Protein backbone atom coordinates (compact mmCIF):
# COMPACT_ATOMS: atom_id res chain seq x y z
CA UNK A 1 0.00 0.00 0.00
CA UNK A 2 1.52 3.37 -0.99
CA UNK A 3 2.57 5.72 1.82
CA UNK A 4 0.57 8.93 2.19
CA UNK A 5 2.26 12.12 0.96
CA UNK A 6 3.21 14.34 3.91
CA UNK A 7 3.97 18.06 4.10
CA UNK A 8 7.74 17.48 4.43
CA UNK A 9 7.47 15.24 1.33
CA UNK A 10 6.10 18.16 -0.69
CA UNK A 11 9.01 20.38 0.28
CA UNK A 12 11.57 17.66 -0.26
CA UNK A 13 10.03 17.21 -3.73
CA UNK A 14 10.45 20.96 -4.43
CA UNK A 15 14.08 20.80 -3.32
CA UNK A 16 14.91 17.66 -5.31
CA UNK A 17 15.61 15.67 -2.14
CA UNK A 18 13.21 12.76 -2.73
CA UNK A 19 14.04 9.34 -4.14
CA UNK A 20 12.61 8.75 -7.64
CA UNK A 21 9.93 6.49 -6.15
CA UNK A 22 8.76 9.05 -3.59
CA UNK A 23 8.91 11.84 -6.17
CA UNK A 24 6.65 9.75 -8.42
CA UNK A 25 4.24 9.28 -5.52
CA UNK A 26 4.09 13.06 -4.96
CA UNK A 27 3.52 13.68 -8.68
CA UNK A 28 0.70 11.10 -8.71
CA UNK A 29 -0.91 12.78 -5.70
CA UNK A 30 -0.64 16.19 -7.41
CA UNK A 31 -2.16 14.80 -10.62
CA UNK A 32 -5.22 13.66 -8.66
CA UNK A 33 -5.53 16.79 -6.56
CA UNK A 34 -5.40 20.17 -8.38
CA UNK A 35 -5.45 22.08 -5.07
CA UNK A 36 -2.36 20.20 -3.90
CA UNK A 37 -0.64 20.86 -7.24
CA UNK A 38 -1.37 24.57 -6.89
CA UNK A 39 0.06 24.60 -3.34
CA UNK A 40 3.28 23.06 -4.60
CA UNK A 41 3.48 25.64 -7.39
CA UNK A 42 2.99 28.43 -4.84
CA UNK A 43 5.80 27.09 -2.68
CA UNK A 44 8.04 26.81 -5.75
CA UNK A 45 7.23 30.41 -6.69
CA UNK A 46 8.03 31.60 -3.13
CA UNK A 47 11.37 29.78 -3.23
CA UNK A 48 12.22 31.45 -6.55
CA UNK A 49 11.14 34.86 -5.19
CA UNK A 50 13.60 34.43 -2.30
CA UNK A 51 16.41 33.58 -4.71
CA UNK A 52 15.61 36.57 -6.95
CA UNK A 53 15.31 38.97 -4.02
CA UNK A 54 18.52 38.11 -2.27
CA UNK A 55 20.57 37.48 -5.40
CA UNK A 56 20.41 41.22 -6.04
CA UNK A 57 21.87 41.88 -2.61
CA UNK A 58 25.00 39.93 -3.51
CA UNK A 59 25.65 42.38 -6.36
CA UNK A 60 25.29 45.44 -4.11
CA UNK A 61 28.53 47.34 -3.46
CA UNK A 62 30.27 46.31 -0.26
CA UNK A 63 31.16 49.24 2.05
CA UNK A 64 34.86 50.12 1.99
CA UNK A 65 35.12 49.66 5.78
CA UNK A 66 33.99 46.05 5.46
CA UNK A 67 36.38 45.35 2.60
CA UNK A 68 39.17 46.71 4.74
CA UNK A 69 38.09 44.54 7.70
CA UNK A 70 38.17 41.50 5.41
CA UNK A 71 41.40 42.17 3.60
CA UNK A 72 43.63 43.34 6.45
CA UNK A 73 44.18 41.88 9.91
CA UNK A 74 42.55 43.84 12.75
CA UNK A 75 44.92 46.14 14.63
CA UNK A 76 46.21 44.74 17.87
CA UNK A 77 44.65 46.39 20.88
CA UNK A 78 47.26 48.04 23.04
CA UNK A 79 47.10 47.28 26.76
CA UNK A 80 46.43 50.40 28.80
CA UNK A 81 49.38 50.20 31.10
CA UNK A 82 50.96 53.60 30.77
CA UNK A 83 49.85 56.74 32.55
CA UNK A 84 48.65 59.79 30.67
CA UNK A 85 51.73 61.85 31.50
CA UNK A 86 54.10 59.16 30.25
CA UNK A 87 51.94 58.55 27.16
CA UNK A 88 52.01 62.27 26.40
CA UNK A 89 55.80 62.32 26.63
CA UNK A 90 56.08 59.34 24.30
CA UNK A 91 53.68 60.94 21.81
CA UNK A 92 55.64 64.20 21.84
CA UNK A 93 58.92 62.34 21.30
CA UNK A 94 57.37 60.41 18.41
CA UNK A 95 56.19 63.65 16.79
CA UNK A 96 59.68 65.13 17.05
CA UNK A 97 61.27 62.04 15.52
CA UNK A 98 58.74 62.00 12.67
CA UNK A 99 59.30 65.69 12.01
CA UNK A 100 63.01 65.24 11.34
CA UNK A 101 62.92 61.87 9.56
CA UNK A 102 62.69 61.85 5.77
CA UNK A 103 59.28 60.35 4.90
CA UNK A 104 59.02 57.61 2.32
CA UNK A 105 56.45 58.31 -0.39
CA UNK A 106 53.19 56.52 0.42
CA UNK A 107 52.52 53.36 -1.61
CA UNK A 108 55.50 53.68 -3.98
CA UNK A 109 54.56 50.40 -5.70
CA UNK A 110 51.07 51.71 -6.47
CA UNK A 111 52.46 54.93 -7.93
CA UNK A 112 54.98 52.95 -10.00
CA UNK A 113 52.21 50.68 -11.26
CA UNK A 114 49.96 53.59 -12.18
CA UNK A 115 52.83 55.32 -13.99
CA UNK A 116 53.47 52.13 -15.97
CA UNK A 117 49.75 51.67 -16.67
CA UNK A 118 49.52 55.23 -18.04
CA UNK A 119 52.61 54.67 -20.25
CA UNK A 120 54.24 57.57 -18.45
CA UNK A 121 57.52 55.66 -18.10
CA UNK A 122 59.28 54.15 -21.10
CA UNK A 123 60.19 50.49 -20.59
CA UNK A 124 63.67 49.28 -21.41
CA UNK A 125 62.09 46.48 -23.45
CA UNK A 126 58.58 45.81 -24.75
CA UNK A 127 57.13 42.49 -25.93
CA UNK A 128 54.00 42.51 -28.06
CA UNK A 129 51.28 39.90 -28.27
CA UNK A 130 50.71 36.59 -26.51
CA UNK A 131 52.48 34.16 -28.83
CA UNK A 132 54.61 31.49 -27.22
CA UNK A 133 57.91 33.34 -27.77
CA UNK A 134 56.58 36.53 -26.12
CA UNK A 135 55.11 34.63 -23.16
CA UNK A 136 58.38 32.72 -22.68
CA UNK A 137 60.40 35.93 -22.85
CA UNK A 138 58.06 37.61 -20.35
CA UNK A 139 58.30 34.65 -17.96
CA UNK A 140 62.10 34.74 -18.24
CA UNK A 141 62.19 38.47 -17.43
CA UNK A 142 59.94 37.89 -14.38
CA UNK A 143 62.00 34.90 -13.23
CA UNK A 144 65.31 36.76 -13.64
CA UNK A 145 63.98 39.75 -11.73
CA UNK A 146 62.77 37.69 -8.75
CA UNK A 147 65.35 34.91 -8.81
CA UNK A 148 62.60 32.26 -8.88
CA UNK A 149 60.84 30.48 -11.76
CA UNK A 150 57.68 32.44 -12.60
CA UNK A 151 54.81 31.94 -15.03
CA UNK A 152 52.78 34.43 -17.04
CA UNK A 153 49.17 34.04 -15.84
CA UNK A 154 46.68 32.79 -18.39
CA UNK A 155 43.49 34.83 -17.82
CA UNK A 156 41.61 33.56 -20.86
CA UNK A 157 39.03 31.89 -18.56
CA UNK A 158 38.07 35.40 -17.46
CA UNK A 159 38.06 36.68 -21.06
CA UNK A 160 41.36 38.56 -20.85
CA UNK A 161 44.33 38.04 -23.19
CA UNK A 162 47.91 39.24 -22.80
CA UNK A 163 48.54 42.09 -25.26
CA UNK A 164 52.00 43.28 -24.22
CA UNK A 165 54.72 43.01 -21.60
CA UNK A 166 56.78 46.00 -20.47
CA UNK A 167 60.14 45.25 -18.91
CA UNK A 168 61.79 47.92 -16.76
CA UNK A 169 65.35 46.57 -16.56
CA UNK A 170 65.65 44.32 -13.53
CA UNK A 171 63.34 46.56 -11.47
CA UNK A 172 59.85 45.65 -12.60
CA UNK A 173 57.68 43.95 -15.21
CA UNK A 174 54.21 45.00 -16.30
CA UNK A 175 51.79 42.60 -18.01
CA UNK A 176 48.97 44.27 -19.93
CA UNK A 177 45.80 42.26 -20.60
CA UNK A 178 42.68 43.25 -22.51
CA UNK A 179 39.25 41.71 -22.96
CA UNK A 180 37.10 41.89 -26.09
CA UNK A 181 35.72 45.25 -24.92
CA UNK A 182 39.29 46.62 -24.82
CA UNK A 183 39.16 46.93 -21.05
CA UNK A 184 42.69 47.03 -19.66
CA UNK A 185 43.86 44.91 -16.73
CA UNK A 186 47.48 45.39 -15.70
CA UNK A 187 49.73 43.32 -13.47
CA UNK A 188 52.76 45.22 -12.18
CA UNK A 189 55.39 42.99 -10.56
CA UNK A 190 58.49 43.99 -8.66
CA UNK A 191 60.66 42.56 -5.90
CA UNK A 192 58.91 42.85 -2.56
CA UNK A 193 58.58 46.33 -1.12
CA UNK A 194 57.83 45.13 2.43
CA UNK A 195 56.13 42.53 4.64
CA UNK A 196 53.01 40.49 3.74
CA UNK A 197 50.18 42.83 2.84
CA UNK A 198 46.91 42.96 0.97
CA UNK A 199 45.32 46.26 0.07
CA UNK A 200 42.47 47.47 -2.09
CA UNK A 201 42.30 51.07 -3.16
CA UNK A 202 41.35 53.20 -6.15
CA UNK A 203 42.60 56.11 -8.23
CA UNK A 204 39.65 57.75 -9.96
CA UNK A 205 37.85 55.02 -11.91
CA UNK A 206 40.74 52.54 -11.59
CA UNK A 207 40.46 49.89 -8.86
CA UNK A 208 43.77 48.66 -7.49
CA UNK A 209 44.62 45.49 -5.63
CA UNK A 210 48.05 45.05 -4.01
CA UNK A 211 49.31 41.63 -2.97
CA UNK A 212 52.67 41.48 -1.32
CA UNK A 213 54.71 38.67 0.19
CA UNK A 214 58.34 38.34 1.20
CA UNK A 215 59.48 37.90 -2.44
CA UNK A 216 57.10 39.89 -4.56
CA UNK A 217 54.87 42.93 -4.75
CA UNK A 218 52.05 42.56 -7.28
CA UNK A 219 49.88 45.57 -8.10
CA UNK A 220 46.84 44.76 -10.24
CA UNK A 221 44.69 47.48 -11.74
CA UNK A 222 41.55 47.71 -13.84
CA UNK A 223 38.49 49.86 -14.51
CA UNK A 224 36.03 47.28 -13.18
CA UNK A 225 33.97 46.35 -10.14
CA UNK A 226 35.75 45.23 -6.99
CA UNK A 227 34.40 41.63 -7.22
CA UNK A 228 35.66 41.36 -10.81
CA UNK A 229 39.04 42.74 -9.82
CA UNK A 230 39.22 40.19 -6.98
CA UNK A 231 38.44 37.37 -9.39
CA UNK A 232 41.16 38.45 -11.80
CA UNK A 233 43.62 39.19 -8.98
CA UNK A 234 43.01 35.74 -7.45
CA UNK A 235 43.52 34.02 -10.82
CA UNK A 236 46.68 36.04 -11.41
CA UNK A 237 48.23 35.50 -8.02
CA UNK A 238 47.55 31.77 -8.02
CA UNK A 239 49.01 31.38 -11.57
CA UNK A 240 52.30 33.18 -11.07
CA UNK A 241 53.98 29.96 -9.94
CA UNK A 242 54.81 31.28 -6.47
Amino acid sequence: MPQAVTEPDLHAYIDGELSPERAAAVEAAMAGDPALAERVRDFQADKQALVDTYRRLADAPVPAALLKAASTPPPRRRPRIIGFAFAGTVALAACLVLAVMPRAPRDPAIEQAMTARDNARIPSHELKGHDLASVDAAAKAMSDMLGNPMRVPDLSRAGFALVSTDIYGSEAVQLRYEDDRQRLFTVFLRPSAGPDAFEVTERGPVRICVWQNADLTAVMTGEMSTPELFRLASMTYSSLGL
Partner: protein
Amino acid sequence: MTAPFGAALAEALPRLRRYAIALAGDVATADDLLQDCMERAWKNQAAITDERALFPWLRAILHNVNLDRIRLRRRRPNETETLDAIAETLAGSCAGDGPALSMDVIRAMNRLSFEHRQILLLVGVEGLSYSEIAGELGIPVGTVMSRLARARERLRALLEERR
Protein backbone atom coordinates in the same frame (compact mmCIF):
# COMPACT_ATOMS: atom_id res chain seq x y z
CA MET B 1 44.92 28.03 1.27
CA THR B 2 46.42 29.02 -2.09
CA ALA B 3 45.21 32.65 -2.02
CA PRO B 4 46.25 34.89 0.88
CA PHE B 5 43.74 34.83 3.71
CA GLY B 6 42.70 38.48 3.34
CA ALA B 7 42.03 38.06 -0.37
CA ALA B 8 39.93 34.95 0.24
CA LEU B 9 37.87 36.78 2.89
CA ALA B 10 37.37 39.78 0.61
CA GLU B 11 36.26 37.50 -2.21
CA ALA B 12 33.71 35.78 0.05
CA LEU B 13 32.37 39.07 1.35
CA PRO B 14 29.64 39.97 -1.22
CA ARG B 15 27.97 36.56 -0.86
CA LEU B 16 28.39 36.53 2.92
CA ARG B 17 26.92 40.03 3.14
CA ARG B 18 23.87 38.93 1.19
CA TYR B 19 23.36 36.12 3.70
CA ALA B 20 23.95 38.46 6.65
CA ILE B 21 21.45 41.06 5.40
CA ALA B 22 18.83 38.39 4.81
CA LEU B 23 19.47 36.83 8.21
CA ALA B 24 19.66 40.04 10.25
CA GLY B 25 16.82 41.71 8.38
CA ASP B 26 18.56 45.05 8.00
CA VAL B 27 21.71 46.39 6.38
CA ALA B 28 23.19 48.23 9.38
CA THR B 29 22.96 45.21 11.69
CA ALA B 30 24.33 42.94 8.97
CA ASP B 31 27.35 45.18 8.48
CA ASP B 32 27.97 45.22 12.25
CA LEU B 33 27.79 41.42 12.30
CA LEU B 34 30.20 41.19 9.39
CA GLN B 35 32.72 43.50 11.09
CA ASP B 36 32.72 41.18 14.12
CA CYS B 37 32.76 38.14 11.87
CA MET B 38 35.84 39.35 9.96
CA GLU B 39 37.65 40.11 13.21
CA ARG B 40 36.94 36.62 14.57
CA ALA B 41 37.96 35.05 11.27
CA TRP B 42 41.33 36.80 11.33
CA LYS B 43 41.90 35.80 14.96
CA ASN B 44 41.17 32.15 14.17
CA GLN B 45 42.63 31.92 10.69
CA ALA B 46 44.84 29.00 11.73
CA ALA B 47 41.65 26.91 12.01
CA ILE B 48 41.05 27.00 8.26
CA THR B 49 43.42 25.18 5.93
CA ASP B 50 41.10 24.13 3.11
CA GLU B 51 39.82 26.91 0.86
CA ARG B 52 36.64 24.92 0.08
CA ALA B 53 35.69 24.97 3.75
CA LEU B 54 36.10 28.74 4.05
CA PHE B 55 32.53 29.79 3.27
CA PRO B 56 30.74 27.32 5.60
CA TRP B 57 33.25 28.30 8.29
CA LEU B 58 32.50 32.00 7.81
CA ARG B 59 28.76 31.29 7.87
CA ALA B 60 29.19 29.40 11.16
CA ILE B 61 31.10 32.36 12.65
CA LEU B 62 28.34 34.68 11.44
CA HIS B 63 25.70 32.51 13.13
CA ASN B 64 27.65 32.64 16.40
CA VAL B 65 28.11 36.40 16.20
CA ASN B 66 24.39 36.77 15.50
CA LEU B 67 23.47 34.57 18.47
CA ASP B 68 25.71 36.70 20.70
CA ARG B 69 23.92 39.79 19.40
CA ILE B 70 20.53 38.28 20.17
CA ARG B 71 21.68 37.28 23.65
CA LEU B 72 22.86 40.82 24.30
CA ARG B 73 19.45 42.04 23.05
CA ARG B 74 21.00 44.75 20.96
CA ARG B 75 18.56 47.33 19.69
CA ARG B 76 16.98 46.33 16.43
CA PRO B 77 16.05 49.21 14.10
CA ASN B 78 12.34 49.73 13.58
CA GLU B 79 10.77 48.22 10.48
CA THR B 80 10.68 51.46 8.49
CA GLU B 81 14.40 52.19 8.68
CA THR B 82 15.13 48.49 8.14
CA LEU B 83 13.13 48.31 4.92
CA ASP B 84 14.37 51.68 3.70
CA ALA B 85 17.97 50.58 3.99
CA ILE B 86 17.33 47.32 2.14
CA ALA B 87 15.27 49.09 -0.52
CA GLU B 88 18.17 51.49 -1.07
CA THR B 89 20.58 48.60 -1.42
CA LEU B 90 18.28 46.83 -3.88
CA ALA B 91 17.61 49.99 -5.88
CA GLY B 92 21.34 50.53 -6.23
CA SER B 93 21.85 47.06 -7.62
CA CYS B 94 19.05 46.59 -10.15
CA ALA B 95 16.64 48.46 -12.35
CA GLY B 96 12.95 48.11 -13.21
CA ASP B 97 10.28 46.89 -10.80
CA GLY B 98 12.49 44.25 -9.14
CA PRO B 99 12.97 46.22 -5.91
CA ALA B 100 9.21 46.74 -5.44
CA LEU B 101 8.49 43.06 -5.95
CA SER B 102 11.21 42.08 -3.54
CA MET B 103 9.97 44.30 -0.75
CA ASP B 104 6.98 42.03 -0.06
CA VAL B 105 9.33 39.09 0.31
CA ILE B 106 11.68 41.04 2.61
CA ARG B 107 8.78 42.29 4.76
CA ALA B 108 7.47 38.76 5.11
CA MET B 109 10.92 37.34 5.88
CA ASN B 110 11.49 39.97 8.56
CA ARG B 111 8.37 38.80 10.36
CA LEU B 112 9.55 35.20 10.56
CA SER B 113 11.41 33.76 13.54
CA PHE B 114 15.20 33.55 13.27
CA GLU B 115 15.11 29.73 12.84
CA HIS B 116 12.56 29.92 10.03
CA ARG B 117 14.44 32.69 8.23
CA GLN B 118 17.68 30.78 8.59
CA ILE B 119 16.35 27.49 7.18
CA LEU B 120 14.69 29.23 4.22
CA LEU B 121 17.91 31.03 3.38
CA LEU B 122 20.11 27.96 3.68
CA VAL B 123 17.85 25.93 1.38
CA GLY B 124 16.61 28.57 -1.02
CA VAL B 125 19.41 31.11 -1.29
CA GLU B 126 22.57 29.21 -0.30
CA GLY B 127 21.39 26.06 -2.09
CA LEU B 128 22.49 23.61 0.62
CA SER B 129 21.19 20.06 0.74
CA TYR B 130 19.18 18.88 3.75
CA SER B 131 22.10 16.78 5.00
CA GLU B 132 24.51 19.72 4.67
CA ILE B 133 22.13 21.89 6.70
CA ALA B 134 21.71 19.16 9.31
CA GLY B 135 25.51 19.01 9.64
CA GLU B 136 25.93 22.77 9.80
CA LEU B 137 23.17 23.33 12.39
CA GLY B 138 23.77 20.12 14.33
CA ILE B 139 20.18 18.87 14.02
CA PRO B 140 18.68 15.68 12.45
CA VAL B 141 17.58 15.74 8.79
CA GLY B 142 13.99 15.08 9.95
CA THR B 143 14.08 18.30 11.97
CA VAL B 144 15.40 20.18 8.93
CA MET B 145 12.44 18.89 6.90
CA SER B 146 9.75 19.68 9.45
CA ARG B 147 11.21 23.10 10.26
CA LEU B 148 11.40 23.92 6.55
CA ALA B 149 7.77 22.86 6.00
CA ARG B 150 6.61 25.12 8.84
CA ALA B 151 8.77 28.03 7.64
CA ARG B 152 7.42 27.83 4.09
CA GLU B 153 3.86 27.57 5.36
CA ARG B 154 4.34 30.69 7.47
CA LEU B 155 6.02 32.61 4.64
CA ARG B 156 3.18 31.67 2.29
CA ALA B 157 0.59 32.92 4.79
CA LEU B 158 2.43 36.24 5.23
CA LEU B 159 2.73 36.76 1.48
CA GLU B 160 -0.96 35.94 1.04
CA GLU B 161 -1.84 38.62 3.61
CA ARG B 162 -0.23 41.23 1.37
CA ARG B 163 -2.25 40.29 -1.71
